[in-house]
């Protein structure tokens, strides 16, 4: 098993992609702390050991400090931090309130900053003991090219990309690798919410028609599953990825590899 003996901390651990990462890490032999705003998360199922669930608001520094203290006391080490907690406001900048803007940055950017900042002492000591310590942030293909009506989200993901490179640069010498995964369209509650918002909009399209159109826009003719993303995160967390750092790993079924296509 790829993550035998490692301890991991996954934020957004009971959300769409986070849940799949937690499940995969558990399968790969890791001790996994799953953190989320509440135990229900956005899904009605989870695969983590309930005793290692951490109630955590990533925007609250005290809670981040307490979460890492708990990991130190319980497990005595941390090898992998995955910053999968994120929110998406489906609006243009004109429609976005200052509160929504601030909340987007608080969760997607400040949250990544806070958990990473307070996990670093533990990650560094794992590295000092010869382990391969790793932080995996959640960027997005939206950090490269924009989806309409997702302005704050696109901006936060661009910020995560730059933060990823900065962290890799600063903490690489301490033995901590930092990467970001940049998913495209993945079948999660976040994507379904996007479909529902757009599908009920103008144009007379049903959600099913919209889903088909989105699938067809991909060279692979499908959007991804949370497990597809978890496969990549698992590799980045493992010792196989020991030379991988500072990169943005796009996983999107080829969507961003193609130039805009017309629909004849």
């Amino acid at each position: 098993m790829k993550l035998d003996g490692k301890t991991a901390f996954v934020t957004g651990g009971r959300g769409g992609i986070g849940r799949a990462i937690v499940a995969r890490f558990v399968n790969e032999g890791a001790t996994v702390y799953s953190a989320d705003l509440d135990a229900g998360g956005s899904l009605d199922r989870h695969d983590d050991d309930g005793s290692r669930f951490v109630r955590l608001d990533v925007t609250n520094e005290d809670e981040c400090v307490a979460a890492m203290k708990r990991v130190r006391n319980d497990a005595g080490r941390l090898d992998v931090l995955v910053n999968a907690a994120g929110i998406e406001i489906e609006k243009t900048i004109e429609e976005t309130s200052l509160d929504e803007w601030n909340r987007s940055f608080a969760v997607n950017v400040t949250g990544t900053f806070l958990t990473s900042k307070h996990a670093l002492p533990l990650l560094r000591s794992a590295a000092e003991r010869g382990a391969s310590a790793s932080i995996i942030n959640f960027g997005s293909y939206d950090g490269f090219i924009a989806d309409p009506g997702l302005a704050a989200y696109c901006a936060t993901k661009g910020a995560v990309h730059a933060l990823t490179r900065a962290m890799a640069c600063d903490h690489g010498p301490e033995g901590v690798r930092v990467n970001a995964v940049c998913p495209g369209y993945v079948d999660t509650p976040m994507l379904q919410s996007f479909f529902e918002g757009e599908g009920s909009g103008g144009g007379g399209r049903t959600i099913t028609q919209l889903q088909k159109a989105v699938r067809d826009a991909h060279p692979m003719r499908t959007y991804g599953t949370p497990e597809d993303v978890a496969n990549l995160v698992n590799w980045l967390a493992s010792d196989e990825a020991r030379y991988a750092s500072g990169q943005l790993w796009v996983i999107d079924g080829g969507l961003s590899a193609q130039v805009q296509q017309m629909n004849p």
Partner: protein
Amino acid sequence: MRLEGKRAIVTGGSRGIGRGIVKAFLEEGASVLTCGRSPAPEDLPADCAWKTADVSSAEDMEHLAATAGPVDILVNNAGIQVERTVADSTDADWDLVIGVNCKGVFNACRAVLPRMRSGGSIINIGSVSGQTADPGMALYNASKAFVHGLTRSIAVDHGPKVRCNAICPGWVETGMLYAGFDLASDPEAARRDALMRHATRRFGRPEDIAAIAVWLASDEAGFATGQLFTVDGGMTAASPINPGIY
């Protein structure tokens, strides 16, 4: 006039983007020599020199460079497009696309570089398709990525004396674009759909590309080298998934 006193070679100036660049350079005061495989087009501006030459021929490019003498600007615009996947492409397609788009740029640069004046500027026409793929245009896409790589190499190797940049046009209203639409089952619908993918809600025009070519050729761009400049009306800034147009 921003190019007064400068001497320029523009390959493929008989039509499309190349012609747009020729006109803009003349308006900015440059003297221009352009070339193509056919005899001089009848509508070529009177003050533009023409030489019948094939960029894929090293000999032709050597003659062209010798005729021009010392120059300040070289625009490698001549290009060709074959609409096929790798599986469908023939050896003749390879020779044609790579011969014109890759070897042509190499031939012209190799012939002109030794004759280029200090402070010279080479401008290659790359493409957004050299960065992300247009379906069914495999050799074209790859040839443009070659142009991007060669652009950086020339900038690095010939640095203090010569600047070298590439322009990556998106969809510009030329014969090449219409050929693309004609492949669609409903060319008019394809055209409408494609327009919606541009933040500017219009396609590019040869003069849009000529405008940045003038800037890159001018002394204002004295610190710009080794880069790809995308001019595409915002097309590649947007996700290919745009629910508003489905």
